[in-house]
Structure formats: structure tokens, C-alpha cells
């Protein structure tokens, strides 16, 4: 009884005083690295966009593919991983009454492991010894140190995942029979996926290292690719789940409403955790060595993921409509006009959600065998992930940064920076629309992806792609402006904005909400089902790939 009272008092104090400085430092450090990676990755993105359009020529010592590798690595691995960890650790600290000292230690150990890993990854890339793109699968072989660096990064992420599990378990012990607060529930789902999703890629990397050192002669390329995509597709959905946490929990508070059904929210998280990892196969839909029946099964498994996404879309618009009508909106779309369009904390995630409609539709196209054959190796795919990751995920992260950074820095969002945020969002939207639409279109016309500037021997067809590539470069330039503005806003909010307390916006459940069943808290069961589904999905193709394996491939250096 006494402990509960003490805990309640502590929670109240936490809420009143804001975040504990030691917890804030963890999130601030992660956010700093994340946005520094955005700035650096953005510059590299613009560089390769201009090179691809033939507008600049890179110096001898820096190749297009090196830039592409670093761009992908910084934005797809560093930015997203650091943002996700920084955001959820702040959320865990806020909703679970402060981080435990041992969890803080784990977060710092995780950080150190990642920081040890980075130079091991980056230096070979800079030395042109690891120009294997961020997908890094064989038969292209980088310097073995590149893969060793990746191992350290994965270990760092695992340490953070375990820290989150310890924190949640401790809270549950202190709050018997209660539901874990919704943001911590999202964090649990994300960290479960981060841990289990990265087991496949860890096995892959551990088989690549002896091969890259020359201790083993060959490697099974198909198995490596399969293990890689089991991770990479999960990573995509980790970003999505992170973004969705803000949509479900934060955005309703920002607009002054209440969040949608707690039962549905938790169901969506559980469904995404269970069904996610096997989705990786749709990235291999035109790979040889996988039978059509298996591919068909995986199209189904991939499309299953769209069910919770549809639920999310419905839930979000329902929240908006309800709030809009409360504010006096009438008619079919009158409520829509009542939304706080001038508030970057709403505008950015709203555009992010809207972008997910074409983004998701494009994803369904790519999961479909025949349609994928048309677009697979073209710029369409690049357009797709710039729409999903570059817009849906990034704009949500930007939206979060305008309240999270002031919250952890004990500063406030000024109207000026809010306005800057709105301008950044608009520039980003226009830039990404130009870039993504031109990428999709030129992809349909046949322009291949992952290629530096070439005229293909002055081919007329290739020349017809040029106007689109120029539009792409214009979009990329606008995005660079967006990156600079966003990085400025983040660093300003972190170090220069006026001091003060900022709220961590968490919406309450709706009135008269039905009670959430307790089975949602049974993570052991959820993980058991997830593992069963992974076994069902992977056993048949992996056994086939290993038992009927070709001789294997020696390492190749294609650059």
C-alpha cells in the first residue's frame, strides 16, 4: 500500500517537474545523433541526386556508389534507430515514472556499443572498401571490419531493447494487474520486433564475416538475402509502428481530442508484431530459387499487414472528425477545416499519414508478383520508399521533434520555430512530391535504380528519362533546404530556445470506453505466436535453399 502511494507521489512529481535530467540526457544524445545523421545523410542524398542527373561530377576519390552506401546507412540505419530509441526512452521515462538506474546504464552501454560500431562501418565506406550499399548482401563483399561494425551496432540496439523490457517488467511488478500505459506498450512492441527481427541479419552477418576474411570460400547467396530481408522489412515496420504510436497517442492530444479505442490500438500493435517478420519475402518476389507457391503464400502474408494499417487509417480519421465536429465543424468536410493546420505538431504527422495512402497502395503493387516484375529494378521502388520512409516516417518524426526536443531540453516551442516548422513541412512535402512522383514515373518508363549517371551510349530511351531526373534533382534540392531548416530547428530547440516546461502530450482514452481485456498484456503468448508464424513462413524455403544449395559464391568486389 505504502509503496503504491509512494509510486503515485513519484509519478505526480515526475509529471509536475518534467523529465529526470539523467533520462533527458539519454534521449537528447540519441536525438542529437539522429538529426546530425539527417544533416549528413541529406547532403549525401543531394550529392548523389545531382550526380545521377548529370549536373555534377564527383571527384576521383568519391564514387556515386560510396555516396549511395553512406546515404542509405546514415538515414535508414542511424537516423531511424537513434530517433526510435531516443523517442521511446523518453516515453518510457515519462509514462513509467522515470527510468531505473540499471536501465539508464543499459541505454548508455547500448549507445557505446553503437558508437564503437560506427567508425568500423564508416571508415571502410570512406576508404571505398565497403561500397556494397546499405543492403550489403552477398556476393558483393565489403571489408570484414564493416560487418564487425554492424555486429556492434546490433548489440547496441539489443541492449536498448533489453533495457526497455526491464523497465516495463519492473513497472508491471509495481502496478499489478494494470495495463501498461499505451506509449510503453508501443515501445514494447517496437523493441520486441527490433530484437527478434534482427536475429536473422545477425546470423547472416556472422556467416559473412569468415567469408569476407577469406576463411570460408563460398557463401549461400539466397540464404543471405532471405535473412537480410527478414530484418530489413521488419525495420520498415518498426518505423511505421513508431510513427503510428505518435498518430494514436500524441496527435489526438495535440488537436485537443481523445484517442481512439484502446482495445483496437493494442490489437493493432499485437497484430503488427505477430505478422511482421515473414513480410520480408515480398522483397524477394522476383528472386530465383523460391517456388511460386511459396511466393504466393508470402503475398498473402504481406498483405495481411495492410489490415492493421487500414484499421489505423479508420481510427485516425474518426478521431479527427469527432474533434472537428466538437469544434463546430459541420457537413461532410466542415470538420476537416477545423483542424489546427498552423500547428506543426499536427500538420507534419497529418501529411505523413496522407502520404501513407499512396505509399501503402504502392506497397501493395510491389507485393504483387506480376506488377513487381514491371517495377522491381526501377526507380519506382526508390520513389516508393521515399514516399513511405522519406515522407510518412520522416514527417512524423519531424512533428514529434517539435514537442519532444523542447520537453527533454526543458525549453519551449516558440511561435517562430513553429512557423519555421510549418514552412519546413511544406517545403518537404513539395520536394518529396516532386521527387517521388518523378521517380515512380521514370521507373515505369524503365529507368533502373542504383545506377550512377549514364547516357547508355546516347540511347534515345534513356534520354527520354532526363526531364524526370531533372525534376527529381529539383525535388532533392528542396529537400536539402528542408533538411537544413529541420536540423536548425532541432538544434535551436535543444540549445537556444527559451527555457520553460513543455508538456509530453498523451491523449486520454475516450469517455465510456470499453475495458481492455487483460490478454493483451500476455507478451509471452504474442511472442510464441510470432515465432510460430516465422517458423511456418521460413522453414520450407530455407530448407530448400540450404539442402538444394548451389556451390555458393566467392566474394566479389564490383567497384
Amino acid at each position, binding site marked *: 500500500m505504502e509503496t503504491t502511494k509512494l509510486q503515485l507521489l513519484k509519478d505526480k512529481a515526475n509529471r509536475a517537474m518534467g523529465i529526470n535530467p539523467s533520462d533527458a540526457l539519454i534521449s537528447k544524445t540519441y536525438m542529437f545523433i539522429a538529426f546530425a545523421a539527417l544533416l549528413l545523410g541529406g547532403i549525401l542524398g543531394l550529392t548523389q541526386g545531382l550526380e545521377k542527373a548529370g549536373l555534377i561530377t564527383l571527384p576521383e576519390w568519391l564514387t556515386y556508389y560510396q555516396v549511395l552506401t553512406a546515404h542509405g546507412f546514415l538515414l535508414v540505419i542511424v537516423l531511424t534507430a537513434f530517433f526510435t530509441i531516443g523517442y521511446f526512452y523518453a516515453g518510457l521515462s515519462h509514462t513509467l515514472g522515470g527510468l531505473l538506474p540499471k536501465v539508464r546504464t543499459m541505454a548508455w552501454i547500448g549507445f557505446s556499443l553503437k558508437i564503437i560500431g560506427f567508425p568500423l562501418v564508416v571508415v571502410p565506406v570512406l576508404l571505398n572498401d565497403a561500397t556494397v550499399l546499405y543492403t550489403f548482401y552477398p556476393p558483393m563483399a565489403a571489408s570484414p571490419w564493416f560487418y564487425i561494425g554492424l555486429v556492434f551496432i546490433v548489440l547496441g540496439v539489443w541492449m536498448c531493447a533489453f533495457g526497455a523490457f526491464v523497465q516495463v517488467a519492473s513497472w508491471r511488478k509495481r502496478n499489478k494487474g494494470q495495463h501498461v500505459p499505451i506509449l510503453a506498450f508501443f515501445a514494447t512492441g517496437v523493441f520486441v520486433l527490433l530484437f527478434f527481427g534482427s536475429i536473422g541479419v545477425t546470423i547472416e552477418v556472422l556467416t559473412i564475416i569468415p567469408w569476407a576474411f577469406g576463411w570460408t570460400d563460398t557463401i549461400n547467396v539466397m540464404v543471405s538475402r532471405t535473412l537480410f530481408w527478414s530484418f530489413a522489412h521488419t525495420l520498415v515496420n518498426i518505423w511505421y509502428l513508431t510513427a503510428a504510436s505518435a498518430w494514436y497517442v500524441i496527435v489526438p492530444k495535440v488537436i485537443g481530442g481523445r484517442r481512439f479505442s484502446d482495445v483496437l490500438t493494442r490489437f493493432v500493435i499485437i497484430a503488427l508484431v505477430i505478422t511482421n517478420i515473414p513480410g520480408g519475402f515480398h522483397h524477394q518476389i522476383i528472386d530465383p530459387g523460391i517456388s511460386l507457391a511459396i511466393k504466393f503464400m508470402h503475398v498473402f502474408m504481406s498483405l495481411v499487414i495492410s489490415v492493421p494499417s487500414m484499421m489505423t487509417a479508420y481510427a485516425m480519421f474518426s478521431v479527427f472528425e469527432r474533434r472537428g465536429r466538437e469544434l463546430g465543424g459541420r457537413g461532410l468536410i466542415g470538420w476537416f477545416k477545423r483542424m489546427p493546420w498552423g500547428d506543426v505538431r499536427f500538420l507534419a504527422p497529418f501529411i505523413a499519414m496522407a502520404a501513407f495512402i499512396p505509399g501503402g497502395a504502392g506497397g501493395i503493387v510491389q507485393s504483387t508478383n506480376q506488377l513487381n516484375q514491371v517495377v522491381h529494378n526501377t526507380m519506382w521502388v526508390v520513389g516508393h520508399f521515399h514516399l513511405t520512409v522519406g515522407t510518412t516516417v520522416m514527417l512524423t518524426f519531424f512533428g514529434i521533434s517539435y514537442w519532444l526536443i523542447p520537453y527533454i531540453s526543458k525549453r519551449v516551442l516558440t511561435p517562430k520555430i513553429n512557423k519555421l516548422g510549418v514552412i519546413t513541412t511544406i517545403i518537404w512535402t513539395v520536394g518529396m512530391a516532386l521527387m517521388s512522383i518523378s521517380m515512380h514515373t521514370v521507373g515505369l518508363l524503365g529507368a533502373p535504380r542504383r545506377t550512377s549517371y549514364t547516357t547508355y551510349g546516347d540511347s534515345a530511351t534513356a534520354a527520354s528519362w532526363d526531364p524526370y531526373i531533372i525534376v527529381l534533382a529539383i525535388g532533392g534540392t528542396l529537400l536539402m533546404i528542408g533538411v537544413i531548416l529541420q536540423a536548425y530547428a532541432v538544434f535551436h530547440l535543444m540549445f537556444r530556445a527559451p527555457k520553460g516546461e513543455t508538456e509530453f502530450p498523451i491523449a486520454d482514452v475516450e469517455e465510456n470506453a470499453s475495458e481492455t481485456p487483460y490478454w493483451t*498484456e500476455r507478451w*509471452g503468448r504474442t511472442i*510464441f505466436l510470432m515465432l510460430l508464424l516465422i517458423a511456418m513462413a521460413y522453414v520450407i524455403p530455407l530448407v530448400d535453399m540450404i539442402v*538444394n544449395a548451389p556451390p555458393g559464391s566467392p566474394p566479389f568486389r564490383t567497384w
Partner: protein
Amino acid sequence: MKQAAYGFALFVFLALPPVARFLESVMIMHMHMQMPLLVIAGYMMARYFQLWFPGFLAKWNGNGIPGIVLFSIVVMYWNLPRAMDESLELAGSELFKFVSLTFLAGLPLRDSWQKVGYACRSTVFIGYMAISVALGLLYTIAPVQLCNNYLLIEQITLGWGFLTTAICMAVYVVYRLMIRHSEYE
């Protein structure tokens, strides 16, 4: 009662010749999809029998042990490679598979699971885990075809299916041993 109707619909669906033929065309789908689904159909239909024949079940399965024994015998029988082979060759055996897994395994499992104690439930679970390991090793190591109807590669695949199922079950057992629900709920 709705659940019993769904169970019956699932049973009918599984018995449709194209569905049955498709699921039986791949060894691992035969054993790890069709057979468990038949048990699940029976499990769902059990509600009907519990409501309509309470006296019968109370008389013959009062403490749940007979039902669990029946379930275990039927499931063990269908784990024999020869039994699976026969169901593809003999119509009678195929019919017996549908009837036994649904009504002599799924149905008693549900009626018994709540009646038997924790020790019995754990024994069944761990027993099935051990059988999965044994069959997994048998199917992956055996150098010859154990079923006339399936190729060696399918047999190895099924073996790995058993082993991964056992791994999942082991993870669950470790989770249950390490984590006491009473500390959290």
C-alpha cells in the same frame, strides 16, 4: 454455439476434396497444417457437445484424464509416418484421419484441458515438445524416404518444421518458468 458452427464450417472446408488434396500435396502442410486444423475444428465444435451432452462427458470424462489419454493416443498415432502414408492410399484411413483428429482428439482436448490439473497440462505440453524434437531429428537425419508419397527434401523440411515448433514450445516453457504471472497480475 457460434464457435461450434465455425468449427463445423472449418471441418467441412477442410474436407472439400480440392482443399484436402492441396493440403496433402506438401508433406509439412499435411502434418503441420491439415492435421492441427482438424484438431482445432474439433476443439471449436466441443462447445456443442459440452452443452448438449453434459451427462455423457461427465460420466466418461469426469476428471479429464480419459479425454487427455485419448487425445494423446490419437495424436501419437498420426505422428507415425506410416499412418500419414496410409491416409493417402486408403480411403478408409483418410476418413479415419478426419474423424479421429476432429472428434477423438480436438473434442476431448477441450473438454479435458480445463478439468485436468497444471501437472497434467505441463506433461502433455512437454511431452509433445519432446516428441517434436524426436520426430524432428528422425525426419532430418533419416537418409531414406520414410513415406512413399513424399520426397526426401519434403521429409527434411518437415523435420525442421518439428524442430522449430519444439524451439517455439521451449521458448514458451522457459518464459513460463522464469515469469510468474502472479508477480504481475
